[in-house]
């Protein structure tokens, strides 16, 4: 199932409601423990805050000169024997990848974790064209077997319980002669490791994403913990990197600064286990490594975000801190968001990539509590950009009519202090009397959203301004 092909962001509200009632999902989400680990890791690095400022500045500088850095990157990459494939749309990227696969007669392609491949629904496309994609990140592998989309950008199977993994393995691994129902994560990992080992060795092409592209050297960088991304790119004859332009960083020094933030923000590790810098295909004397190295650079609307209110989003390094700390994401999980990128970063990115008419609910599903911005290593003003989407939505008259009417009525009164005083005086009195006995109201007309789950505290009976003028004060 690909959310890129079948977005359900329009049904966000219903999705969220279902997610809250889904007990298995709720149990699974209870395991999300990155936030505490991040806190500890940040505490061990006193320079963390200063590094955030520098990382933001580095990315801003890069975006300001993105064309230059992309060209420099390409030149360097060519010198090392690699090739860049520029693609504007998902379709161009899919075709570019397929034609590389066809040129070497590839039947299977191993994949490291890449959200961009989700964005372009690469797997169903490859399958339909006779190339079998094999996800090798354990989480991605699990959800590929279950035919589900990822629900988190670095822990794609966070919505799955270990019992569900066991059932899935029992069903799908029978083909490999594995017929035991497993109970421990350790055994499940071992079984998957054994099966995937064969896939690594048999693949014709390996495809990875890129956490960063380095202009100085023409390199791509992947950051992983499992080592699957490395086996994916080392063993097959061809390595394809699927990247997007904003992954660019000028120098190795610059990326070092950002790397100090990435793992700590993501999983709370000091450094991820494997940070791998790849530059071109194997050298003539090398005894291992891929013979071909291709980098597919997909724009898909990103460069159009430059110079707009959403440019800052292009600083995102996909660390997932904003998801991990978001109370809304923690309550409903990733699938409810209905497209590839969930959580706060998704609420900003998704309307930009599939349209605010499709995904307008996402930037509305925030209390603006600001936690995401406070933990974002790249200091992306996520709530501010969600508000910008609300503005677009309002301007295009896409927000729900009831909301617009309510707002209009409120604004009409709020701009007329005397009328406003009259109305609030009346309301305070009526509601005050009504709620006097219990101190609150169980039901309130036009406030069903509130009183469905909460009582409405009764007013004291007179407004502050009434009382203040009664006391003769100014």
């Amino acid at each position, binding site marked *: 199932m690909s959310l890129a092909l079948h977005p359900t962001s329009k049904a966000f509200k219903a999705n969220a409601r279902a997610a809250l009632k889904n007990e298995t999902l709720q149990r*699974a989400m209870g395991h999300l423990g990155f936030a505490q680990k991040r806190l500890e890791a940040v505490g061990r690095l006193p*320079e963390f805050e*200063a*590094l955030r400022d*520098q990382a933001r500045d580095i990315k801003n500088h890069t975006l300001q*000169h993105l*064309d*230059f*850095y*992309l*060209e*420099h990157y390409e030149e360097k990459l060519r010198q*090392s024997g690699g090739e860049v494939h*520029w693609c*504007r749309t998902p379709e*161009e990227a899919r075709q570019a990848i397929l034609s590389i696969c066809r040129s070497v007669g590839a039947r299977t392609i191993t994949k490291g974790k890449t959200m961009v491949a989700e964005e372009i629904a690469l797997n169903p496309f490859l399958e339909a064209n006779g190339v079998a994609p094999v996800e090798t990140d354990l989480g991605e592998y*699990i959800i590929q077997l279950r035919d589900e989309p990822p629900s988190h950008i670095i*822990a*794609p*199977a966070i919505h*799955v*319980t270990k019992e569900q993994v066991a059932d899935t393995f029992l069903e799908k691994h029978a083909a490999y002669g594995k017929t035991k129902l497993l109970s421990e*994560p350790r055994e499940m*990992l071992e079984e998957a*490791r054994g099966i995937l*080992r064969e896939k690594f*060795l048999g693949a014709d092409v390996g495809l990875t994403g890129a956490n960063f592209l380095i202009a100085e050297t023409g390199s791509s960088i992947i950051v992983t913990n*499992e*080592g*699957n991304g*490395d*086996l994916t790119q*080392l063993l097959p004859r061809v390595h394809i990197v699927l990247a997007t*332009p904003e992954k660019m960083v000028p*120098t190795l*020094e610059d990326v*070092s*600064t950002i*790397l*100090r933030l990435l793992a700590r923000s993501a999983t709370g590790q*000091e450094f*991820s*286990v*494997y*940070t*791998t*810098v790849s*530059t*071109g295909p*194997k*050298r003539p004397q*090398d005894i*291992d*490594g891929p013979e071909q190295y291709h980098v597919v*650079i997909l*724009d898909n609307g990103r*460069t*159009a975000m*430059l*110079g707009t209110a959403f440019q800052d989003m292009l600083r995102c390094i996909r660390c997932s801190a904003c998801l991990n700390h978001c109370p809304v994401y923690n309550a409903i999980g990733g699938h409810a968001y209905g497209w590839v990128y969930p959580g706060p970063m998704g609420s900003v990115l998704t309307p930009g990539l599939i349209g605010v008419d499709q995904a307008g609910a996402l930037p509305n599903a925030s209390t603006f509590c600001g936690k995401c911005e406070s933990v974002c290593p790249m200091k992306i003003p996520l709530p501010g950009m969600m508000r910008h989407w609300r503005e677009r939505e309002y301007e295009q008259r896409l927000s729900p009519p009831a909301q617009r009417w309510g707002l209009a009525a409120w604004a009409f009164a709020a701009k007329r202090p005397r009328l406003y005083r009259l109305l609030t005086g009346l309301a305070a009195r009526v509601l005050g009397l009504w709620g006097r006995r219990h101190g609150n109201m169980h039901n309130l007309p036009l406030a069903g959203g509130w009183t469905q789950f909460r009582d409405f505290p009764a007013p004291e009976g007179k407004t502050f301004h009434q009382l203040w003028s009664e006391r003769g004060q100014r």
Partner: protein
Amino acid sequence: MTEARAQILTSIRLALGRGVVDAATQQELRARLNGHRRNLVPARGQVTGRQKVEDFARMVEFSLASIARVRSVDEVPAAVTDYLKQQNLPAEIRMAPDKRLDAIPWGRTPLLKIARGMPDPKDEVGLSGAFAGIAETGTLMLVSGPDTPSTLNFLPETHVVVVRASELVGGYEDAWTKLRAAMPSMPRTVNFITGPSRSGDIEQTLQLGAHGPRRLHVVLIDDDPQAGPA
């Protein structure tokens, strides 16, 4: 493809409200690229001498790798066999054909079977030499080359890495400086390795040895006179 290229670059320039980056700015940007200017390096990445060695050793363990410290290359073979025995592993290793590893007197442990060259999927233990060790996070830096296949870092279940105290640096920036000094251009692969492979993808329970090595063992040759006595 060239059309897409042109269009993407044009789209960037339009969005930024300018044409091609002017010559003066280009020069500035090139100078920035070639200047290798460092950003803020945390205190932890600026350690030197004895502290660098101690920090490295401590952070290696923090990353869930193990470490054995020896005083000279002569002690490496015994350290390796001891480790294998301790872990109940066969005394058989696949070793990178790395000339630096030839300085180690392997003949002293005749029971240790050593195969050189490309790793085979059946190899249980791989042994390589690090290009550098980074004290800041206990990270090993390995580079690919004719004598140093990257595959060895990932295929065997157990990975033993030999590093000398003189190869240790404070932070990542020092590692890049060292690499630039040693090589005219980037090698195909630079692997930064911090601890053994792991996954938390099943209910966020940490499991070691997801696809890469389950065990990472560092043999640190603590013989650097500049670092002071161990």
